[in-house]
């Protein structure tokens, strides 16, 4: 669909124009709308001097006088602030730690900028900051600088956190989303969909109870263990948009075809039950402690074994392979049928149909 056709159509077609008019929630969901925003607004306007933005890696890797640093930033706006298994503070630390870890870096220092809504309870703020300290401790990073702003009531949904981080990338470590090639294997480090379902369980209009907890965790140790066990081509942190979005991004950046086996993808039973109830596909539900690795085929078993030795990797699974063929992601069902697993435009919505 070229730009020309869209504009020509706008005169007759009563359908809403695609984004251009206003930002909609879909722009933040990690799907095609988000990618479009980066591609059509941020990259062209901001210039992308090191070509790192367009690379769409989890972090930028920059060379500073011979030292390679990974540098990343992430914002956390989740509501509610506390949910089963985790909270916005822990997410804010682990999220940036993991983005750095995915480039093979050892995360070292974080900044934390808080935007607080007027009227936020001091106790809530205290709990969030304590959680950040805890998480930083467990992840082995120091929060060395920060900022605080307060906005008027209604301006920030309680509180928002932006963290940025730097880490050291050891010489010889070369992971990047463009490096996958046919024959490679795909590994996922743990069950998918847990985080998104945990958050949803506390949303007022869709609440439910159960043994669901966010999987937020620092993955540095896991990634280091995997890197030591063999050749890893690509590493991505599966966050918003879910496993399906990460596979699509990797396939697109590397220009390869990825086929995943539906029955090999781990999902915890209560997460699956929640998805069934709401009509959601766990492959598109957000995670906060899952890494997706594309690895050299001869090292796949060793890397898988190494992952399983680590806590967050206990349920690591081999879920697919990179094949010859046009750029796309496919899912093979139990009946042997293969269907495309496409990138969604915005967030999945619970359905009644």
């Amino acid at each position, binding site marked *: 669909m070229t730009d020309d056709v869209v504009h020509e159509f706008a005169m007759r077609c009563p359908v809403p124009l695609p984004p251009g008019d206003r930002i909609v929630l879909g722009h933040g969901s990690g799907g095609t709308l988000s990618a479009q925003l980066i591609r059509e607004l941020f990259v062209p306007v901001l210039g992308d001097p090191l070509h790192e933005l367009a690379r769409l890696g989890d972090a930028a890797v920059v060379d500073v006088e011979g030292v390679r640093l990974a540098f990343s930033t992430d914002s956390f706006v989740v509501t509610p602030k506390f949910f089963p298994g985790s909270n916005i503070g822990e997410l804010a630390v682990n999220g940036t730690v993991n983005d750095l870890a995915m480039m093979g870096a050892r995360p070292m220092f974080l900044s934390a900028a808080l935007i607080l809504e007027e009227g936020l309870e001091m106790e809530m703020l205290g709990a969030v900051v304590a959680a950040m300290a805890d998480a930083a401790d467990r992840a082995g990073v120091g929060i060395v600088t920060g900022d605080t702003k307060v906005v008027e009531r209604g301006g920030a949904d309680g509180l928002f956190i932006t963290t940025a981080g730097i880490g050291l990338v050891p010489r010889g470590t070369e992971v990047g989303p463009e490096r996958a090639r046919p024959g490679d294997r795909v590994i996922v480090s743990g069950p998918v969909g847990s985080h998104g379902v945990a958050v949803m369980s506390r949303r007022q209009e869709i609440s*439910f*109870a159960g043994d669901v907890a966010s999987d937020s965790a620092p993955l540095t140790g896991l990634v280091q263990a995997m890197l030591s066990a063999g050749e890893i081509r690509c590493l991505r942190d599966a966050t918003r948009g879910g496993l399906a979005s990460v596979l699509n991004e990797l396939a697109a950046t590397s220009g390869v075809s990825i086929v995943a086996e539906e029955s*090999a993808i*781990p999902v915890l*039973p209560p997460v699956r039950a*929640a998805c069934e109830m709401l009509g959601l596909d766990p492959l598109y539900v957000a995670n906060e402690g899952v890494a997706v690795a594309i690895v050299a085929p001869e090292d796949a078993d060793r890397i898988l074994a190494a992952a399983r030795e680590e806590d967050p990797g206990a*349920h690591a699974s081999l879920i697919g392979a990179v094949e010859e063929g046009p750029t796309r992601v496919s899912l093979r069902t*139990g009946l042997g049928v293969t269907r495309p697993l496409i990138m969604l435009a915005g967030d999945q919505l619970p359905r*009644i149909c």
Partner: protein
Amino acid sequence: MCLGVPGKVVEIYEQDGIRMGTVDFGGITRSACLEYAPEVDVGSFVVIHVGFAISVVDEAEAARSYELLAAMGNLEDIDLPKTADGVPAEHYRPGATGTRR
């Protein structure tokens, strides 16, 4: 039209003058209105659509008809749920029922 999911009634109570229940879908529970399933007890299975039980699962009929289906499939390969509540594994693979791992 019509996402209806089966679940087990684990609790029955009244709220605002109508009969409600807590339904377990295999790990998660949610409240549902039981006004349209007046005959259920704790332990019954119901089909839930938008927070309402629209039907009670006829377990005898289900067992009878499933036996006929199962006879068609290759019985050695069938890994039917063993516990009363369904798949027992700590790990669920979405498409894996019926195949040996």
